[in-house]
């Protein structure tokens, strides 16, 4: 067990080192470049102009509602009272910025692969957050494996450095518990917005409960699944001892070509399962390999995803 523990610690340390190493100026420059590209992709949009379903104190009339005690007298529509002899208040559409919560998985399994899925997830999350912040929306990055602390969303590009600092301070590793993470997120009742979950979703606890919980609380959910090439095509044959980095389970197996084929089939059906789950619920789903270029992924996300609109 000491061997497995040290292995997990080692791989987490390596992943963290990689993430910290990537938080430099060059990465920020890269993010800026991606932002510029995103502007071209979503050109013509007015910044922070998101119409929300929340009715508030805007100038554009939305609808009437019956007066209830405590409502602002200034919003009572007296003309309508004259015609109907009932008090109604005028409701206006409220213009507000839409918070984007980018949750990226930092569990033990995400430290696997070359390059590690965790670094990849961090980079994708950073890129998305940066683009959102650059559009003057509120955004935050939340590393998670299970129940987590919520970093309040901020505004402006300068927020990125603060987020990097928080991530640097946070502890990586643990067992993936998507449901626990969602639960802890919604319990903190953050403002409604978009929740982007970046994970390998390789959890025995499943992902359905987590997504359903977020949807129930009116969050727009976007799923980005990332797997390493080693997850997708394991290059291993013969007698081996498989070790689950999250559950610490060990299994002696003889891996044959047939067995690898079966694994491939199983993995594909697992990915398709998530995909169809998302499709059924109109949840945008993206898949990326950890060895894919960040630029390619982002462009794919901007173009096909449309979640920046």
């Amino acid at each position, binding site marked *: 067990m000491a061997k497995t523990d040290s292995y997990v610690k080692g791989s987490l340390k390596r992943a963290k080192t990689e993430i910290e190493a990537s938080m430099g100026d060059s990465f920020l420059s890269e993010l800026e470049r991606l932002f510029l590209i995103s502007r071209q992709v979503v050109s013509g949009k007015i910044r922070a102009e998101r119409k929300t379903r929340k009715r508030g104190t805007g100038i554009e009339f939305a609808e009437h509602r019956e007066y209830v005690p405590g409502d602002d007298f200034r919003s009572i529509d007296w003309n309508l009272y004259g015609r109907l002899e009932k008090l109604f208040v005028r409701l206006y559409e409220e213009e507000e910025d839409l918070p984007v919560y980018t949750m990226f998985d930092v569990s033990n399994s995400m430290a696997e692969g070359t390059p590690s899925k965790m670094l990849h997830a961090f980079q994708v999350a950073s890129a998305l957050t940066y683009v959102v912040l650059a559009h003057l929306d509120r955004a935050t990055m939340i590393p998670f494996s299970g129940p987590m602390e919520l970093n309040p969303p901020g505004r402006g590009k300068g927020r990125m450095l603060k987020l990097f600092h928080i991530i640097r301070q946070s502890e990586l590793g643990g067992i993936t518990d998507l449901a626990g993470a969602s639960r802890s997120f919604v319990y903190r009742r953050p403002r409604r917005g978009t929740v982007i979950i970046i994970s*390998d979703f*390789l959890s025995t606890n499943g992902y359905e409960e987590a997504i359903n919980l977020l949807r129930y609380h009116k969050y727009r959910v976007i799923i980005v699944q990332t797997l390493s090439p080693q*997850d997708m095509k394991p290059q291993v044959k013969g*007698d081996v001892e498989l*070790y689950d980095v999250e559950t610490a389970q060990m299994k002696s*197996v*003889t891996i*044959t070509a047939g067995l690898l084929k079966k694994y491939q089939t199983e993995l594909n059906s697992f990915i398709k399962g998530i995909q169809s789950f998302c499709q059924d619920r109109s949840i945008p789903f993206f898949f990326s390999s950890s060895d894919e270029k960040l630029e390619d992924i982002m462009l794919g996300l901007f173009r096909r995803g449309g979640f920046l609109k």
Partner: protein
Amino acid sequence: MIFTGISFSFLLKIFGIFGGMIGLLYLLKLRERFIPVSAHFLWERVLKSGQRSLLSRILRRFFSFLLQLFLLSLVVLTMGNPKEKEATIRVKSILVLLDTSASMKALDIKKGDEYISRFEYGVEKVKKIINSKKEKDEMMIVTFSSQTVPRTPWESNQLNLLGTLEKLAPNDTPSNFEGTLHFVSQILHNRKNSDILIVSDGAVGKIPQVITDKENTKCLKVGEKIDLSGHNIYTVPVRPTEVFSNIAITSLAARPLVTDPDTGELLVTILNSGQKELKTRLDIYVDGNWRESRNILLGPSEEKVRLIRIPLVGKNLEARIKSIDGGYDPLDSDNTAYAVLPLRPDPKILLVSRENLFLEAALLLLPGIMERVNPEEYNTKSPDNCGNEKCNILIFNDFVPDKLPDTKNQYYINPAGKPFDVSRTLNENLMIMWTGGKTPHPIMKSVSMKDVNLWGYSSAFKVNSTDVSLMQIDARGTVLGILRTLKDGRRLVATGFSLKDSDFSLQVSFPVFILNMVNWFLGTSHTFLATYSSGKMIEVYEDAEQINRPDGKNIKVKSGRQVFNPLLAGIYRFMKKGKPVREIAVSLLDETESDIRFRETSIGCEKLEIYSPSEIIPKKVSGKSIPWKLLLLLLLTGIILIIMGYVRGALGAFSAFSGVTIIAISAFYYFKVMGYPMWIALSCAILVVLFLEWITYNRRITV
């Protein structure tokens, strides 16, 4: 089985070291590799349907380990070059019969851009045989042509054998294969199971009857048989790479005309052994100067005889044949025939006799000088002077000098005693009944004595072992005519009756007898041999110190009787004090040698098996002796067992291992039965195991 490569103890060490390493690797392999995975639950789902049992996995690993050890043992065994005990302990006797006859000089084996002779090719083959023989095998090299000559004793040292081989060369003689096989049977008298290898182009002439182990009784003929039973006779064929036509002179004779001794007649036979028509030219050279030419068209396998008249002026004659239409003639030895021309008869005869017209008349027919003296004058006159020259023939009629003269040729008529011993004196009427039979002496050729009557006293001679009987009156050996050759070369002819007491001098045969005798004395007889055939024994009497051979080498000899076997074509000169005293021409005149078409060497009716010098080439194995059914059964069983390797559990593991092992054993058995050496069979088994292991490994059958 014993190991002729690396010793058994060393093999064990090698097996121990490498076996230990394989064992170590096996133990290391038992420690499974640690593979971290992110999605263990996915693997769990996969393994539910496809994972083998623990026992199966352990057994497969163990059998794989056994298979590696099996492979190692095969490799180690191969390094030991194992051989069957019986085959290796027996020291083989290999008798190489290398053909050095004239046909082996034919340049018709292409090597690179040029042609090498059959002999050179044969030597190369013998070298290979020497190099491939086992260290302790004994070998003897014997060359055969007209003579069979052992060139080495039974020798196992390869360097000595190769050294001897370098010194050998072919000669200009035909093969005497029968004599060779007689020699072989004597040499192998006390040996058993020897290999007799006949390295030849098949032009060996008469094939004798030989008793071998494989003798087919239907082929037997009456006659002496050479017993070579108990030995293995092989042929190492010296096969030309291309077939050419060969033209040859197969006979040459020269003789002076009886009626005109200044003119000679040449009889030449020419042969075309090829299958194409050839235009040829026959050139006659006398003492190196061109004298005569004839164009002759020779059809396929055609032989033509030409009679050519030339002046008998000169000593040596060469007849040369060549193709004039540009055809390549691979054999030169038979293109030239040599002859020594008969000397123009020049008798200088001193007749010591009272007047005898019949005798004198017969002598007067001869060219040259003839002088007669009465017997009482002989002692007072210088005995050997014929005019101003020394006489070369003395004839004594009814007279014997006190002292035997020095003259080389002497004829005594009725010597009645000395220098001959008289065994019996006869006083009765007699008739001569025998004058040499079917092969009379040249002096008696065409001399009939049947009608000759003898009366009065006659002397029967006592015959020594070196004497030649010329005429007898009965079969009991009552000799009335004798030829004696003394040690110093003087030749004495005597007839034991007086011409006065017989009617011999009245017969036609008398001048013929005198002519024959004088010609024989002077070496100009009608039976004069212008050329001798190479490889046949020659017996000459000559007062010489050495013989110069055609190749320039000199052989010292003693004066007197010379018996030798000329191996080279050309002129042999008998020398005394640096001057030639006699010349003998030798030519290759043999149709068999000149017919250079390749023939399979056979003995009797039996076609010989070809010897394979390299062990790599398997001996012929007839299809019947290979147990195909068994091999097929083993192969099928092996394949089925390997397929059963897919079965889960211990059964599958055991099946896969057994299948590979059985197929490997089948491969080994097949190559062994095919006659390949054991190391090759083992190597094949190794390759089969590696191949099957590769296939099964990639399909995870054996792992």
